[in-house]
């Protein structure tokens, strides 16, 4: 159980949010030119990091907007949140 700071609404319990998985996966620009390997990489393969991970969240029971978070998956501590389109603070 943890608190997530929505960049639009502030701190809320995580149960107000929906998880969107690994962030910064870019949909291929030319899907027709991809090999099956490349499709599998985009669709299925995940970093599944134990440690600091960049991921997407949606404030589904609040402002309903998407944003990104940098969270440590080994202890669920959120290090920073940032808006869609922005780069994470390293």
């Amino acid at each position, binding site marked *: 159980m943890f608190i997530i700071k929505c960049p639009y609404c502030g701190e809320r319990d995580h149960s107000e949010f*929906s998880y969107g*998985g690994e962030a910064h996966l870019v949909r291929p620009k030319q899907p027709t030119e991809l090999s099956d390997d490349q499709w*599998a990489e985009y*669709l299925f393969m995940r970093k*599944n990091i134990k440690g600091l991970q960049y991921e997407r969240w949606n404030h589904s029971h609040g402002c309903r907007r998407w944003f990104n978070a940098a969270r440590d998956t080994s*202890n*669920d501590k959120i290090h920073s949140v940032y808006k869609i389109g922005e780069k994470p603070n390293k």
Partner: protein
Amino acid sequence: MKKKYSIFALIKNSLSYHENWQRAWRDPEPKKEYDAVIVGGGGHGLATAYYLAKEHNLKNIAVVEKGWIGGGNTGRNTTIIRSNYLWDASAGLYDHALKIWENLSQELNYNVMFSQRGVMNLAHNQHDVRELKRRTHANRLNGIDCDWLNVEQVKKFCPIINCSPNIRYPVMGSTLQRRAGTARHDAVAWGYARGADSMGVDIIQNCEVKGIKRNGNSIEGIETTRGFIKTQKVGVVAAGHSSVIANMAGLRLPLESKPLQALVSEPIKPIIDTVVMSNAVHAYVSQSDKGELVIGAGTDSYISYTQKGTHEIIEGTLKAILELYPIFSRLRMLRQWGGVVDICPDASPIISKTSIKGLYFNCGWGTGGFKATPGSGHLFAHTIAKDEPHALNAAFNINRFISGDLVDEHGAAAVAH
């Protein structure tokens, strides 16, 4: 040589106050080199080592475990065993395991307390009824026993289920696999460990893998907290941490690791002599031999390696349990815990070679790996020894995510992943 467990051994050892039992397995120092190393000393890993030694005549094998054997998901599950899966590939895989379970205590000379008390899967709406009837037929076509029970039969088979038509999700019928049931989770790990050890397998605990050494496209060995171990074959059975190990070898896997919770109640007198699962309301319950109700909750939605889930998940499960079994309303819960499960996009496991020669993965069992322990070890041992999959695990290769030939058990597995 291991001494056999028997009634005579029990009497003999009782005369010396049970102080002279032989050690069940040794605690060896790691050797410099092994023919094969299994990473992960849970049930699946220990079973793999056991069958490598027994059926493939490999004697120089080690199992390395970062904690203690059976201390991960083997010790954290709800011990349910069944094989009523929809697709042919899954039916073959899980029924292979169930058949081994049926003789496992005799085979290992270790009581794994396998109890074929039956598993029910409840239907709560018309769609469930159609799906579960379809699964009943599919199971029978695959030679797996499965019966359909109407509401009266459900009430007769398990009287404490609330079969009132007035509850939010009324019970409309159920499947019943009579050969299914439960087993003692620790005993499975310990039985396989004892069996493997007696054939010379080194079980090395408190030994965490820190790196995988490659020479081009083949394996040279593993770096561990207890030094470098040279080997040409590495079988990884690391459950929730599979991606962490894969990362060391420069591989990517289609896995997400999430916390899955379970809980047990205070012990009560025998009240439920079967296993009841419900996919639609996500509640499943059985009773242990100690008398505790064993209740499985769901996974959290996000990736986490914390071995603890959130309270809402438990609350949701207990709400469903209370509606289905009002008789439990004043029962107190005793313990709650979480395990980290590695989930594949198609909710089926991977038992496969990889693009690196000598590196094999057995992972992706998600929320339902315990039932497959003996079969998983048996097939993974075959895959490692022969460097090619057994017919029963050929469909569970890692390349299915490239070819698109998925084994989609999301709907067919008994509880949602």
